[in-house]
């Protein structure tokens, strides 16, 4: 089970903030989320959306271990 976190507008779009989802890889997790919610699937692939696995930014696919934390981070804006 991976823990999936959504931030900012992604959370509002999906209607949830955090879920445990069974998935062996980041690519598989993306497909699963897109199947379940097409709008969310498109948004996760949208411009400027970054992904962190276990609090480190990653690009492309990677395997997910049990207890991995996957965070989808839309464009950031502080200050």
């Amino acid at each position, binding site marked *: 089970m991976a823990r999936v*976190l959504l*931030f900012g507008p992604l959370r509002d779009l999906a209607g949830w903030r955090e879920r445990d989802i069974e998935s062996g890889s980041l690519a598989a997790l993306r497909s699963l989320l897109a199947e379940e919610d097409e709008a969310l699937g498109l948004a996760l692939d949208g411009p400027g959306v970054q992904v962190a696995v276990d*609090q480190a930014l990653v690009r492309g696919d990677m395997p997910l271990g049990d207890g991995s934390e996957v965070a989808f981070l839309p464009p*950031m*804006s*502080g*200050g």
Partner: protein
Amino acid sequence: MIRLTDQPFDPGALLTAFAEGRSETGAIATFTGIARAEAGATAILELEAYPGFTEAEIGRIADQARARFGLHDLAILHRIGRIGPGEPIVFVATAAGHRRAAFEACDFLMDYLKSRAPFWKKEHGPGGERWIEPTAQDHADRERWDKETTG
């Protein structure tokens, strides 16, 4: 010091603490960002962070600033949660031997915080709520630092 807080804070108290006992530091620059009332439209800002990750990312930017500008010290405090008009959102302080380095480092840190730090900002206004993304100006401000060499 790099810290997030969901409580209002006094930037002056932070500067007092930061300035204390600095006999080798010639220059301290600070920046305080305040939630504007936007001409009477009493909006509430809501700031979200990714606890742990957000502090770590700011820490990486802070390390860059330390090295690039030869800082003696720095402090960053950022509000999260709901923020009313007139309340400080962010405080940055930099200490250096000379003023140019202190100013530039403070400016640099703010440009990064505005457009690259892991925060998400929602405005609750009279016309409903909306997520705020960095402006084109915010991106242009940050990109200055990719071109410039420090003088």
